[in-house]
């Protein structure tokens, strides 16, 4: 055992032992532990394997920048790969497993890569694996993919719940360490709406790991005191376990809250994670600073970690990271740790300070080596000793842990996500937060490096300024005295010269100093190219630990300041965010809202099979007993409509009520055909174009009274057409007196079609429906027997005598039932969109299969609907371009297979007989096809080059994709009742 739990100390609950497993072995931890601290308390140093060389790796940090200690937590559908043990809150029953090793963590075959490392230098794969060409996909790439990745993704559906929420505040404080706490306190006392977030499960940030005394209290107790006051303020919201991962436009912050990641059995009443969008008027970044590792030979041996991590394990978790701890530092951090360790009775074998001199004072019992450096380490799966070098004199020092401190980098990530670059400070030897305006400022050590007292002061002061800026009366906050803190100042040491063995800059991706050198030699010199070529900074920690060292080392190689090298781009996410949290409830069946027709229940009772149509579910067909295939049902429905009558739900069509003195003029401009003279009580088919002259949508519009129309759209385009009309009315012609609103949801609308439609409907409607009283294209309000007002339109999509009846939605089912009952003797049937589609293909009516955003009115035989004599309508002016009127455009035709039972499918292309398939020979395509029970043949609508000139021609319907070729005859697109006799009976 090397690392171990001390007999006393720390913020862990020693009365509450928790049991957990790692790679199947059972361990004990304490409430308040992370998985990492609990593993260390059990002497487990080896926790993972690196990506490329599979080197044994231990815990390096005590926070979210951890590159090594990635484990899979949980099992089955709840297993969560790549979880950082350093931030995973321990709970009873936690089961963790190591990753990227085979057969076991201790004996990993992949470690052979380490021996091959001379061949696996940065970018090696760009230079090889190319011969023979076929080998890349058959041999090399499968090998590479076998080695890819770290954790394993389980493909089962996640059983847990996720939520999303919005929050609004005056001041968002990110980080609950000294600066954050005081900022929240200052603004909270002033009455501002404050949200204080911290990624940790316990608020207090670095105060929880600090041995300093603040206002006479232990730092952690001081944090507790401030938090207690904040909890009494109703205008302050405290959010632990919440990571702000992104800063977006307009001061919107993305954050993710772990609601139930610390319980073995989450309750379904709460989400496991909750995504927050926090809208803040002002924000303070008090995220602290990240301690940099030092770069020397073997700096990745398990047992080597940052000094701050060692201090956190000691002070917060009561864990000594080793029995004999060596410290390698270039600043005060190492001294602070040495003091804390010796105070806790842990042996510090040596304190090696890279600086020749400094004002820092080491504890008396500790051997201090000034001007020294660690050049390599020894040990296989755990650190055994280090080689310290002072002025060329090498000494092996036995130790089981090495704490290193390479200085501090302010955590400025969030402030750099919107394009601003951090600014190099020679004085601080660090990249500092950029100026992103007064609304978002950094405070405390995130704003630079300072002692604890200064961080407390900075947080309070900056919050006071922001609160006053928002109009709150903020008073100066008293800052308590601080004793026993240390000066974290440091001198730069980017890389230990004379290092032996690999010196790692990016631990997870195994990027070494040698790799950086190679990238410079090979001209991948821009820092972004260096990153991309070496993969440094591309691991799950996104370079939190390594990037600044990379920049410093590259700067050293080039002999320039790190300022000249600059950083790579900071982008969301600060730490990785689960897909689950980002998706919230919008997944699976709930990925989009469901729209239900008012006749849904009626259709269901009549046995409908439903199909998704946009957000709607529409009844597709209504199978009856004995019908084995959908086609049998559809054929019967079509035959019934043609012979008797059927009822179809058309409620999903868009309906827009249009009012105003300018309504007629408006319609005349948005439709290509004439609308000024539509009489009251009449409906008209209308064609809408886009401004580029292409058909947009079609539908009927009825004039219900002098200045009141109702316009219908297709189901698919209802939303878009509404917005299009609004654009025309508001942005194009704001002077026209026209107002409209959607009434799509108000009406249950049903089409009653077939030769018996009138007889049946008359049994339900009071008004006279005779052809004389209610001729084709009539549209007006009628009264149903029983006194229900309804709208009735005599329009037909099927080509039969047909009506569309609209009743208030709540009555839809009852009225449909009544009509079905009224038509029982005539054999009325319910018919769905499949039969409707057959009926309209037989009649040659177009849908968006034909109107695919590339067709003109003339292409689909509706050229007569272009009222070119009108001075203006949307789409008129560009509709005459050469390309839109060319003689060889695709025109809509009908197709009949030469052999009636030969099936034609939509999506097939057309070829002249004996022509070789090629794009040049392509004659067009089949847009809609069906079996016509009326004609007892497959039929189709097709778009064919110069189609209308080619009636009678035999053409090959070429469907190589589905392995069929059918000979068909080109014919006019109207297969049934071409003279429209049925409409006028």
């Amino acid at each position, binding site marked *: 055992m090397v690392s171990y739990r001390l007999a006393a100390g720390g913020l862990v609950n020693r009365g509450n032992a928790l049991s957990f497993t790692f790679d199947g072995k059972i361990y004990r931890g304490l409430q308040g532990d992370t998985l990492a601290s609990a593993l260390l308390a059990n002497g487990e140093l080896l926790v993972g394997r690196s990506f490329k060389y599979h080197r044994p790796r231990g815990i390096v940090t005590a926070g979210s920048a951890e590159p090594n200690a990635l484990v899979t937590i949980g099992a089955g559908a709840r297993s969560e790969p790549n979880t950082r043990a350093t931030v995973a809150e321990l709970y009873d029953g936690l089961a963790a497993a190591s990753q990227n090793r085979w057969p076991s963590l201790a004996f990993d075959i992949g470690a052979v890569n380490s021996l091959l490392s001379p061949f696996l230098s940065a970018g090696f794969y760009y230079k090889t694996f190319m011969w023979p060409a076929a080998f890349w996909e058959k041999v090399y790439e499968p090998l590479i993919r076998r080695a890819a990745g770290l954790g394993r993704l389980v493909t089962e559906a996640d059983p847990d719940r996720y*939520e*999303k*929420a*919005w*929050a*609004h505040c005056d001041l968002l404080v990110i980080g609950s360490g000294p600066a954050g706490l005081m900022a929240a306190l200052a603004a909270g006392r002033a009455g501002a*709406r404050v949200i204080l977030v911290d990624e940790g499960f316990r608020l207090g940030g670095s105060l929880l790991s600090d041995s300093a005394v603040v206002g006479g209290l232990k730092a952690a107790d001081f944090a507790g005191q401030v938090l207690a006051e904040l909890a009494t303020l109703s205008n302050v919201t405290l959010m632990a376990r919440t990571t702000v991962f992104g800063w977006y436009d307009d001061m919107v912050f993305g954050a993710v809250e772990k609601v139930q990641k610390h319980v073995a059995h989450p309750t*379904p*009443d*709460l989400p496991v994670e909750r995504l927050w*969008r926090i*809208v803040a008027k002002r924000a303070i970044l008090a995220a602290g600073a990240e301690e940099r590792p030092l770069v020397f030979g073997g700096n990745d041996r398990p047992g080597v970690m940052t000094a701050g991590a060692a201090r956190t394990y000691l002070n917060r978790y009561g864990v000594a990271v080793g029995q004999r701890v060596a410290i390698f530092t270039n600043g005060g951090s190492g001294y602070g740790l040495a003091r804390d360790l010796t105070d806790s009775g842990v042996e510090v074998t040596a304190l090696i300070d890279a600086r020749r001199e400094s004002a820092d004072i080491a504890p008396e019992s500790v051997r201090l080596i000034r001007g020294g450096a660690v050049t390599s380490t020894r040990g296989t799966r755990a650190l055994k000793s280090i080689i310290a070098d002072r002025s060329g004199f090498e000494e092996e020092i036995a130790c089981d842990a090495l704490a290193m401190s390479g200085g501090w980098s302010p955590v400025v990530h969030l402030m750099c996500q919107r394009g601003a670059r951090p600014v190099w400070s020679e004085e601080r030897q660090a990249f500092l937060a950029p100026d992103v305006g007064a609304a978002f400022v950094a405070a405390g050590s995130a704003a630079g490096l300072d002692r604890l007292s200064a961080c407390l002061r900075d947080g309070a002061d900056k919050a006071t300024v922001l609160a006053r800026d928002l109009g709150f009366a903020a008073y100066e906050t008293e800052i308590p005295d601080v004793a026993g803190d240390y000066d974290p100042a440091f001198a730069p040491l980017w890389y230990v010269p004379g290092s032996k063995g690999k010196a790692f800059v990016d631990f997870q991706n195994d990027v070494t100093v040698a790799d950086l050198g190679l990238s410079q030699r090979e001209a991948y010199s821009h820092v972004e190219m260096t990153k991309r070529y070496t993969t440094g900074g591309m691991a799950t920690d996104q370079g939190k630990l390594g990037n600044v060292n990379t920049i410093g080392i590259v700067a050293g190689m080039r002999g320039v300041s790190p300022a000249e090298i600059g950083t790579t781009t900071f982008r969301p996410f600060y730490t990785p965010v689960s897909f689950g949290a980002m998706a919230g*409830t*919008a997944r699976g069946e*709930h990925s*989009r*809202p*469901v*729209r*239900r*027709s*008012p006749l849904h*229940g009626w259709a269901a009772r009549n046995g409908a099979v439903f199909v998704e149509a946009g957000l*709607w579910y529409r009844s597709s067909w209504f199978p009856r007993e004995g019908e084995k295939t959908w086609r049998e049902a559809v054929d019967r429905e079509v035959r019934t409509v043609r012979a008797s009558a059927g009822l179809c739900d058309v409620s999903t069509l868009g309906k827009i*009520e249009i*009012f*105003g003195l300018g309504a007629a003029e408006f319609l005349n401009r948005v439709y290509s055909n004439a609308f000024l003279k539509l009489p009251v009580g009449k409906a008209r088919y209308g064609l809408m174009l886009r401004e580029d002259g292409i058909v947009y949508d079609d539908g009927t519009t009825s004039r219900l009274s002098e*200045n*009141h129309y109702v316009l219908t759209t297709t189901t698919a385009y209802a939303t878009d057409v509404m917005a299009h009309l609004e654009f025309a009315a508001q942005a194009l012609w704001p002077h026209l*007196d026209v*107002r*409209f*609103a959607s*009434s*799509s*949801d*108000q*009406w249950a609308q049903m089409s009653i079609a077939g030769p018996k439609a009138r007889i049946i409907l008359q*049994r*339900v409607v009071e008004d006279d429906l005779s052809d004389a009283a209610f001729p084709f294209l009539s549209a007006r309000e009628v009264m*149903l*027997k*029983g006194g*229900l007002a309804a709208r009735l339109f005599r329009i037909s999509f099927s080509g039969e005598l047909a009506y569309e009846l609209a*009743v*208030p*939605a*709540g*009555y839809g*089912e*009852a*009225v449909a039932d*009544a009509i079905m009952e*009224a038509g029982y003797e005539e054999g009325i049937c319910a018919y769905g969109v499949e039969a409707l589609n057959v009926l309209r293909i037989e009649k040659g009516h177009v849908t968006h299969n034909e109107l695919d955003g590339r067709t003109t009115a003339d292409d689909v035989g509706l050229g007569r609907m272009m009222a070119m004599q009108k001075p203006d309508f949307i789409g008129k002016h560009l509709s005459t371009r050469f390309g839109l009127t060319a003689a060889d455009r695709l025109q809509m035709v009908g197709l009949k297979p030469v052999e009636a039972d030969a099936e034609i499918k939509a999506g097939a292309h057309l070829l002249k007989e004996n022509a070789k398939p090629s794009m040049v020979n392509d004659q067009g395509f089949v847009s809609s096809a069906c079996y016509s029970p009326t004609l007892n043949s497959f039929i189709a609508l097709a778009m064919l080059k110069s189609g209308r000139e080619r009636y009678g021609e035999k053409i090959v319907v070429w469907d190589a994709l589905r392995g069929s070729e059918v000979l068909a005859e080109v014919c006019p697109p109207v297969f049934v009742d071409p003279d429209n006799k049925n409409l006028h009976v």
Partner: protein
Amino acid sequence: MTLSFAHRHVLEDHIVGFETKPNPHHLAVARRPTILSVLSHAGFEAGVKAALQALEGVSVRICGPAEWLAVSHSVGPEALLRLVRAIEGVSAFDHSDGRVLMQITGPNVRKILSKCLAVDIDRDRFPIGASASMQIAHVAGNLARTGEDAFEIIVPRSYAGTLFEEVKEMGREFALTAAFSPE
């Protein structure tokens, strides 16, 4: 042949049983409120709004400039339509069947709503009496504040099921119950 047509609420399928006692957090669905869409023609906006607000037993919900919903639990649609159409510069139609109205109440109602909508409904910013159209649980609806801890949601009928289920889900944390309002 005389007919009588039964009216059916779209949430009949979603709300089962009336025996549940309402919890402190409760979603009450109105069975048949009167809801009219009211549009003002250019130049009449202020007058129309004032006249609407003067109508007795009618709540006015703002949808946008020159567009409102007139809501009533006491005046029927035909009667209200007559009253509204008497206002100069108005076009209006009965939307009672096209809209579903529900009231959500409870001490943590804002927490539930913060999971459904993005608008800041702090009492200073969205006071009692305020109303606006907005996205509510992925559906374009109208929200009104009717009390300190009471809000009214009006959504298109076809979306009502989705919205109802989503709000219920977000209310789980506070044991939200739901039922039709007592007549």
